[in-house]
C-alpha cells in the first residue's frame, strides 16, 4: 500500500501536466485528488504496518543485475512516520496553493514530481534507488522557486539546486566507494550495513556521506541555502522545503551514513554535535534580528533542524527517536508557519517587512491568521501539549547523556527561540503602533481567509496537537525500528 504513494504521485504529476493550461480548476482538482489519495495510502499503510516486525519489505524486483541493483522498497517505523508527514505536507501544500493562477498545470507537475521523489527516498531499501529518488527531488525545487518564486528567486533557486547537487555528489562518492570496497556485489542497504568497513575507511567516508546528506538538512555552516531558498520560494514550495525536503537530508544521515558507517559516527560524534548545537544557537540568534518575516521562519528552521542532527549524534535510542519525532514535528509546524507567512500574510499584504507589517493591525483584519500563527508559534517554541515539546525534550535527554555541556547550550537555543517567536508574533499581529501615513493610505480591507486555507491550517494544527498530547502514536512506530538488523552495527557501537 505504501508503495502506491510513489506511483500515485508521479502519475499525478503527469496528469497535472496534461490538464489544459487555461483551466486551473481542473488542475487543482487533479492535484488535490492526488495528494489526498497519497495521504490515504500512507494512512492505510501505517495502520496495516506492524512495528514489531522491524523492517518490512514491500517490493523486491531485480532491476539492474549487472551491478547488483534491485528495485526494493521497504518500510520501518521511521519510514512510515515520514511518509505520513509527506502525505500531510502534500495535502496542505495543495490547499495553500489554491491561488496559483499562472501556469498552474506546470506548477503542480513539478510539485508532485518533488513529492514522488520524497516518498521514494523514505521507502527505498536499495541505496541506488534511494539516491535516484533523492536526485529526482532536486530539479523540481529549482523550477518551483525560479518560476513562481519572489525575492531574488533566480539566485535562491540556483543556490538551492547547486547545494543539493553538491551534497548528493558527496553522497555519490561515498556510496560508490562503499560499493567498490565491499566487493561490488550489491547496493542493498541491509547487505551494505552488515559489511564491516575498515575503520580507516569509515573515518573519511562517514563525514563525507553524512555531511552530503546534512547539507539538505541545513547543517551549519552549509545552511545558507535554506533561508534564501525558503523565502524566495512560493508558499507551497517553502512548506515542502522546510516540511519534507530538509527531512530527506536528515533521513539520509540516519538511514545511510549512520547504518553503513557506525564507527565513523563514533569517531565524529562530538564534532557533529558541536555543529548541530552551533546551528541551533546561531539559527535562533540570526532569526532574532531578521527584518523579513520569511527569513525569521527560515532561520528558525535551521535552528530546529539542529535538534534533529543533535539527536542523531547522541548515539542513544532516546536521542534517535527524539530526532525522528522532531523531523515529523518540525515538518508540520514549519509548514504551518510558512503557510501563515507566505499565503495568509504575504499574498494579501504584499510585503514581508516586519516594520511595514507592524502598522497594519493584522490581528484585527485577519484574526484567523493571527490565531493560527500564535498556535504555530507556541508549538514551535516547544510548549507542552504540542509535538515540538516532546520531540525536543527527548533530544535534550539523549544529548544530556552523551554531551551535557552541549545539551545546556541547546537549551539556551530554545530560550532564544521563545524570544524571537514572541517578538515576531507581537510585532506583526498585536502591535499598538499606529499605522504610518503611507500605510494608512493603503489601509483597505484584506481578502478574507479562504476555505482551503482554513482546511489546511486545521489539518496541520490537528497533527501537531494530536502528537503533542499522544506522542505514543508515533513513538510506538519509531522506537521498535531501531531493533531491526539494519541498525545492528549502530547498536553495537552505541553499546545498546
Amino acid at each position, binding site marked *: 500500500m505504501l508503495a502506491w504513494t510513489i506511483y500515485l504521485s508521479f502519475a499525478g504529476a503527469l496528469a497535472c501536466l496534461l490538464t489544459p493550461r487555461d483551466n486551473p480548476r481542473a488542475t487543482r482538482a487533479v492535484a488535490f485528488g492526488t495528494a489526498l489519495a497519497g495521504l490515504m495510502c500512507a494512512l492505510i499503510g501505517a495502520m496495516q504496518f506492524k512495528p514489531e516486525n522491524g523492517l518490512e519489505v514491500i517490493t523486491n524486483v531485480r*532491476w*539492474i*543485475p*549487472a*551491478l547488483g541493483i534491485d528495485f526494493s522498497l521497504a518500510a520501518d517505523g521511521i519510514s512510515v512516520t515520514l511518509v505520513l508527514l509527506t502525505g500531510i505536507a502534500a495535502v496542505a501544500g495543495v490547499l495553500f496553493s489554491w491561488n496559483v493562477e499562472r501556469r498552474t498545470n*506546470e506548477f503542480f507537475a513539478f510539485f508532485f514530481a518533488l513529492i514522488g521523489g520524497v516518498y521514494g527516498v523514505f521507502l527505498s531499501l536499495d541505496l*541506488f534507488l534511494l*539516491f*535516484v529518488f533523492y*536526485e*529526482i527531488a*532536486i*530539479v523540481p525545487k*529549482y*523550477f518551483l522557486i*525560479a*518560476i513562481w518564486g519572489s525575492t531574488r528567486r*533566480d539566485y535562491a533557486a*540556483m543556490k538551492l*539546486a*547547486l547545494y543539493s*547537487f*553538491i551534497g548528493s*555528489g558527496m553522497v*555519490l*562518492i561515498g556510496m*560508490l*566507494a562503499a*560499493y*567498490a*570496497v565491499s566487493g*561490488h556485489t550489491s547496493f542493498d542497504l541491509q547487505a551494505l550495513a552488515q559489511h564491516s568497513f*575498515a575503520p580507516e575507511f569509515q573515518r573519511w567516508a562517514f563525514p563525507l556521506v553524512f555531511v552530503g546528506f546534512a547539507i539538505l538538512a541545513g547543517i551549519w555552516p552549509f545552511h545558507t541555502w535554506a533561508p534564501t531558498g525558503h523565502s524566495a520560494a512560493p508558499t507551497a514550495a517553502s512548506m515542502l522545503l522546510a516540511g519534507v525536503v530538509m527531512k530527506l537530508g536528515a533521513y539520509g544521515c540516519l538511514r545511510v551514513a549512520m547504518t553503513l558507517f557506525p564507527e565513523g559516527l563514533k569517531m565524529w560524534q562530538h564534532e557533529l554535535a558541536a555543529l548541530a548545537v552551533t546551528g541551533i544557537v546561531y539559527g535562533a540568534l540570526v532569526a532574532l534580528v531578521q527584518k523579513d518575516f520569511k527569513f525569521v521562519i527560515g532561520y528558525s528552521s535551521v535552528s530546529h533542524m539542529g535538534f534533529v542532527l543533535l539527536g542523531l549524534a547522541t548515539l542513544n535510542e532516546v536521542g534517535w527517536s527524539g530526532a525522528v519525532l522532531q523531523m515529523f514535528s518540525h515538518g508540520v509546524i514549519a509548514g504551518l508557519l510558512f503557510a501563515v507567512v507566505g499565503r495568509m500574510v504575504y499574498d494579501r499584504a504584499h510585503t514581508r517587512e516586519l516594520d511595514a507589517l507592524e502598522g497594519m493591525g493584522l490581528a484585527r483584519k485577519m484574526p484567523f491568521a493571527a490565531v493560527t500563527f500564535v498556535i504555530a508559534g507556541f508549538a514551535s517554541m516547544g510548549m507542552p501539549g504540542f509535538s515540538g515539546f516532546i520531540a525536543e525534550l527527548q533530544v535534550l535527554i539523549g544529548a544530556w547523556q552523551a554531551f551535557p555541556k552541549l545539551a545546556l547550550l541547546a537549551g539556551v537555543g530554545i530560550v532564544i527561540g521563545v524570544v524571537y517567536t514572541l517578538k515576531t508574533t507581537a510585532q506583526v499581529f498585536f502591535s499598538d503602533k499606529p499605522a504610518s501615513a503611507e500605510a494608512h493610505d493603503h489601509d483597505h480591507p484584506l481578502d478574507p481567509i479562504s476555505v482551503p486555507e482554513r482546511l489546511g491550517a486545521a489539518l496541520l494544527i490537528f497533527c501537531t496537537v494530536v502528537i503533542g498530547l499522544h506522542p505514543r502514536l508515533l513513538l510506538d512506530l519509531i522506537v521498535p525500528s531501531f531493533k531491526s538488523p539494519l541498525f545492528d552495527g549502530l547498536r553495537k557501537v552505541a553499546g545498546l
Partner: protein
Amino acid sequence: MNTADYLALFTALAPEVIVVCTALLVLAVDLLGLQGTPHSYRMSIAAGLTTLGCGGAVVWIFLNPTVGNWHGGMLVIDPLNETVKAVLLLLTVLTAILSVDCKFTRHVGEYFALLLLATVGMMLLVSTEELLMIFASLELVSLTLYILVAFNKDSRASAEAALKYFLFGGMSAAFLLFGFSLLYGLTGTTHVPKMAEKLFTIGADPLLTVALVMVVIGFGFKVAAVPFHLWAPDAYQGAPLPSAVFIASGSKVASFFVFAKVLLLGFSQLGWGDEEKATGGWIPLLSIIAAVSMVLGNLAAIKQTSVRRLLAYSAIAHAGYMLIGFLAPGGDAFGSLLFYVTTYALTTVGAFGVLGVVESQVGGDQLKDFAGLARRAPVLAWCLMVFLLSLAGIPPLAGFFGKFYLFAAALTNGGHHLPFLWLVILGIAMSCVSLYYYLQVLKQVFVVEADENARPLVVSSLSRVVVVLLAVVTVLLGCMPGWLLDTIPTAIGERGW
C-alpha cells in the same frame, strides 16, 4: 582463395555493401531524376532512401548474426561489433531525418551520399582489428566529415570550421600513422591481438611509450579530448546542423569504440607502465587527459552564450568522462563506455534536434533565443529538459546511469586502494558545474518569458516525432538500463574479454 570465400566475405560485408549501394542510389536518383523539383521534395526523397538503406542494413545485421574473422583480422565480425554498427546506422538515420528541415545546400544527393559514405567508414572502423584498415577507414570517415562541415557554401563560418577541422585532423592523422609505424617496427605486425602478444614478450620499452603517445594524440583528436579539442567548438558552431549532429554522435561512438579497442586490446600489458625501465603506461596518461577534459570542458561551457558552443564544450567534458571508462577492468570498460557513448549520442542528437528548430524559427542559437520556449513549443521544451538533464546526469535519465556505471566500474578497478577515487571525485564535482550551465539554458526555456509578439513555433511533424522518440528513449534507458546493458556484456562475453 576460391569463390566460396568471396561469397562468405560478401555476406559478411553485406551491411556495408547495402549502405554503399544506397549512397550511389541516392546520388543517382537526385542527379538524374529530381533536378528541378522543389528542394524539400528532394530532401525528403533522399532522406527516405537513406533511411531505407540503413534500415535494410540493420535488418540484415539482426537476421544474419555472423561471427568470423577474415584476412587475419582485416574484417572481424562479432556480436559486439554488430551492436555498435546497428547504433551507428540508427544515428545516421536520425541525422538524415533531421537534415530534411535544414536548408543549407542545393547539392542534396551529394550531401546524403557523403553522409552514407562516412557511415560506411565508421562501420568498417569498428569491425577491424588491423592497424592499416583502422587507418584507412578513419581517413574515409575524416575526409567525408571535413566536406560535410564545409557543406554550407554560403557561410564563411562553415568554411572556416571545415578548414580548422581539416588542419587539425590532418596533423592528428600524421601522429596516428607515425605511432602505427613505430608499432609495426617494434612488433612486426599490424594485427592488434598479435601485436599485444608481441608486446607482452618485448615488455616495456621507451620506444613503445613514444608510439603510445602518438596513438593517444591521434585518437584524442578524434574524440575531442583536451588538449586536442580546439577544433570542436568552431566545428560545432560553423557546420551545418546535421553535420554537427553527426560529428557529435556517430563519429564519437565509432572513434571511442576503436580507441578503446586499440588501447585495451593492444596495450593491455602497458597499463601502468614500468617504473624500472622508465616507461609510462596509458593509465596515468589517460587519467590526466580525462581530468583536464572534464575541468576545461565544463568550466569553458559556463561562459558560452551560444548553445552550439555550449554543447561543444560539454562534448569535450563528456569525452573526459568517457575516458574514465577506459580505466575500468576488462569487460566493464567496454560495457560502461559503450553504454555512456550510446546514450550520450542519442541525447545529443535530441538536443541538436530542438536546437535546429529554434535556429530555423527564431533565427539563432544564442541563449536568449530560447526564451519562453516552454510557451512557444511546449513539447520540444520538455524534451529539451530531458536531454539536458540527462547530459547533466540527473536520474532517472540515461545520462545518470551512464555516469554512475562508469564511475562504479572505474572504482572497482584496483581493489581496496581505490586508485581512481580522485578522478571520480573530480568527475562528480564537475557534473555539479555542468548542472549550472544546463540550468542556465533551461532557465531561458522555462522561466524567462518570451516577447509579447512571439508566436508559437511551427514544428514539422518529422522533427517532432524524432525529438519525442529520443526523449522517450532517454527516459526509458535511464529507468531500464538493463535493456542496453544486457546486450553489451553478452556481446562482450562472447569475445571472452
